[in-house]
Each structure stands twice: as structure tokens, then as C-alpha cells.
């Protein structure tokens, strides 16, 4: 029995994981979500931006991370459009271009935001930190046109936006270490206020920057997305997925506990 438990077929574990995902998807459950301090800070910061203010929303992620980061982007855009804050979307990650464009279109259909007045999507430029530095001097030196090819000089909301001095906040949604590049080059050199939304695996990496104030707020993974949806009072995919993730976490914790009990019993017998 013990040997069987210790060498359980991995396919059984796979089936258990699949069930832990599928069942709560079919029968949704709702659990109370408490808001963490870093998420609350970002929400509060955006709330202090006056109507007519501008934020930059950077889609530094690809399809592999969309489950965690798309709900964050959606929630932030909804908050901004509701408060009449303008959004400049862009990406330093080639694959983020179509994703950012598609997501903005989805949110625009829900909120009725107007292209060129409430938001603009600039698209992608290669060069990472050089793009960050370049926009600090002059955005048009990097992006002379938006994603649809319209010159920035003809876009109403860009008339008074030259560089980071006219941007109230930059929110980097990242699946890698690009947030650190934004902090190093845009925050340190141009004093641009930065917040981040990151995938679960890099949350711990961001905490030193939160403590120093180089990040004004942080949305940590899908849990943070659900927290943000609670704050804007618009539960969506983040809330659904964190509830599903609860069951998967419980399953993994259960497996680890069972594995350790079996391990200790076996070790005691061997002794």
C-alpha cells in the first residue's frame, strides 16, 4: 500500500489536476477575496489621478501569460476609462502587439472609449531599454505613428504629450524582467511613476522595488487580478480563475502532505 502510494502513476495525478480545474469551471464557486496592500496601493494611486490624466499601459507579455495578465489589463483600463483617464498602450515584446491591440478592442467595445481621445495603441518597437530611454526625451522619436499608422501629431490625446513628464503613471504588465528595465531607465532617470502587474512566478522579485517606492503598486498574479476586479466592483475572469486555482492549490498541498506522510512512515520502517 505504502509503496503504491509512493510510486503513484503520474497519469492519476494529471487526471486529479484536470478534475480540479474542470469541476469548478463547470460549477463556479465564489469565495471572499481579501485585497492585498500592493494591489490596493495601485488602485488608490490611479484613483488620485485627475480626469484628463494619462497613464501608459505596457503589454510586456505573450500568450503563455495571458491568463494572468489579461484580466489585470482589462480591469485597469476599465478603471481608467470610468475616471476619464487616457491610456497609451504599447509593448516592448513583439508578441504583445496583437495581444494588446485585441484586448484594447475588447475593452473598448464594453466601455465605448474612443480611439485617439480616450486611448491610443502605439504597438511595438524593438530595442527594449533604448525605447524606454528614447520615449523619456521624445515619444515621437520612437513612435511617430500609432499602431494603425496614424501620425501621433494628428491624434488629439497626444497633442500635449511629448514625453514622460506628461504621463502620470506607467503600468507594466510583465511576464519577465522588463519591469526592472522600466524602473532602472524610466523611474530612476526620468522620475516616471511606475506600477506593475506580474505573473505569479516573479512576484517575489518585485518586492524590493515596492519597499523602496520605485513601484507605487503591484498586482501579484491572478490573485491580484481578482483583487483588482473586486476593487473596481466588476468581477470577471480573474475572480473566476482564482477560485478555480484555489482547488488546484488545495490538491497540490494535499498531494505534498500525503507524499510526506508516506515518506515518513517508510523512513521509520527502514530505521
Amino acid at each position, binding site marked *: 500500500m505504502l509503496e503504491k502510494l509512493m510510486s*503513484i502513476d*503520474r497519469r492519476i*495525478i*494529471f487526471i*486529479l*489536476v*484536470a478534475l480540479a*480545474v474542470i469541476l469548478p469551471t463547470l460549477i463556479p464557486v465564489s*469565495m*471572499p*477575496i*481579501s485585497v*492585498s496592500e500592493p494591489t490596493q496601493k495601485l488602485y488608490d494611486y490611479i484613483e488620485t489621478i485627475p480626469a484628463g490624466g494619462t497613464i501608459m499601459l505596457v503589454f510586456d507579455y*505573450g*500568450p*503563455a*501569460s*495571458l*491568463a494572468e495578465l489579461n484580466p489585470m489589463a482589462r480591469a485597469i483600463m476599465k478603471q481608467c476609462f470610468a475616471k476619464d483617464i487616457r491610456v497609451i498602450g504599447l509593448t516592448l515584446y513583439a508578441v504583445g*502587439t*496583437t*495581444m494588446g*491591440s485585441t484586448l484594447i478592442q475588447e475593452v473598448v467595445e464594453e466601455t465605448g472609449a474612443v480611439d485617439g481621445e480616450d486611448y491610443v495603441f502605439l*504597438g511595438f518597437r*524593438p*530595442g527594449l531599454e*533604448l*525605447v524606454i530611454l*528614447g520615449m523619456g*526625451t521624445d515619444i515621437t*522619436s*520612437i513612435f511617430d505613428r500609432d499602431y*494603425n*499608422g496614424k501620425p501621433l501629431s494628428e491624434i488629439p490625446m497626444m497633442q500635449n504629450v511629448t514625453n514622460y513628464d506628461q504621463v502620470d503613471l506607467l503600468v507594466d504588465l510583465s511576464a519577465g524582467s522588463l519591469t526592472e528595465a522600466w524602473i532602472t531607465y524610466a523611474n530612476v532617470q526620468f522620475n516616471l511613476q511606475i506600477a506593475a502587474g506580474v505573473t*505569479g512566478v516573479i*512576484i*517575489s*522579485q518585485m*518586492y*524590493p522595488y515596492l*519597499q523602496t517606492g520605485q513601484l507605487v503598486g503591484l498586482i501579484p*498574479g491572478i*490573485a491580484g487580478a*481578482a483583487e483588482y476586479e473586486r476593487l473596481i466592483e466588476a468581477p470577471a475572469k480573474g475572480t473566476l480563475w*482564482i477560485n478555480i*486555482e*484555489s*482547488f*488546484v*492549490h*488545495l*490538491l*497540490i*498541498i494535499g*498531494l*505534498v502532505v*500525503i*507524499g*510526506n506522510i508516506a*515518506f515518513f512512515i517508510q523512513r521509520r520502517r527502514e530505521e
Partner: protein
Amino acid sequence: MRRQVPLILCFVFGIVMIFTQFIPHSLSQSLHQEVRQWYLIIFPFALVFSSIALIRTHVMRIRRRTEHWRYSFLIFIGILMMVVIGVPFGPQHHVFEWLFNNVQVPMDATMFSLLAFFIASAAYRAFRARTLEASLLLVTALIVMLGNVPVGDLVWNTVFAWLPWENATSGMKQWILDNPNLSARRGIILGISLGVISQSIRIILGIERSYLGGGD
């Protein structure tokens, strides 16, 4: 000459770019801006080179009939389709967007989703409290995992409702992230930064030459 020219270029541009960072004079800043423009022009060439390298690798696989060589044709079909639509019409074209949203996105997301299955299996097999350090890691991981999902607080607030601490699971997780994690991370960041500085100096001075590849 094949090695000397890149070494000289690396040295000159490395030094110049460092100085332009610290000299706020307009001449220095315009030089910095000019070089940035060059970089933006040079960068796409790297994409061309990487595409050529990818094509060469898969041509070799087909020629040598290595394992799963037939899948290399899929690479060519994928590249060809995206180039044929993307280059003349741009990524805004509805066919390009459709292919991206309905082929690349699901495939990429699926590959990443598989991790959940492997992590669960690996955690069951390998996450054992064999030593004190492993036990600490195990307990910390369990607290963070439980504190990261709403069920953690739900269980705590239900089972330990008589205790004065509400939402203690997420509170413990937050404490772990704010204190032990933050301290360790700061040490790691400092170490990495010092490593990057020393490696950059080695490259600029031509001591580290591995980026030049092999040959003379």
C-alpha cells in the same frame, strides 16, 4: 582583423555610451540619442539573422533525417504563412490577427498550461521534508500557496473563527513576502548587479571575448 575591429568598436561605443549617461551637456545627449537611433535600425537585422539561423537549422534536420524531421516542415509553413500576410499587409491585417489569436495564442497558452500538471506531479514526488532546510522550504511554500488563493482565508476564518486574527493565511503570506523574501531578493539583486558591472567592464576592455564566437 576579424576580431580586432569588433573589439575596437565594442570598446569605443562602450566607453562613449557610459560617458554620455553621466554628461548632461546637450552635445553628449544628442550623441546618445543618435546612437540609440542606430540601435533601433540595427536591431531588426538581428531578427533577420535569427530567422536565417532557424531556417538553416531545420534545413539541416530535414537533410540529415534526424528524429522528428518531418515537423520541421511545419516550421516553414508557419514562417511562410505569417511572412506572406504580415510583411505586405502588416500585423493589423485581419487574417494575420486571426492566425495569431486562433493558432499561436491557444498553442502557446496550452504549452504553458501543461506546467500545472507537471508541477503537481513533481511536487508530489520531490517535495519531501528530508532536512531542516527542506522542511522550512516546504512549510513556507505551503503557507504562500494557501495564502495566495481565497480558500486559504476562507478555511482560516471558518476553522479559527474564535481567534482574533482575521485573514491570517494571506497575512502570513504577506509577511513572508515582505520580510524574509525581500531581504533575500535584495541580496540577490546586489549580487547580480555587481556581476553585470564586472562582466560589462570585462567585455568593454576586451578581456571577455566569448561574444565574438569561435574562429580567428
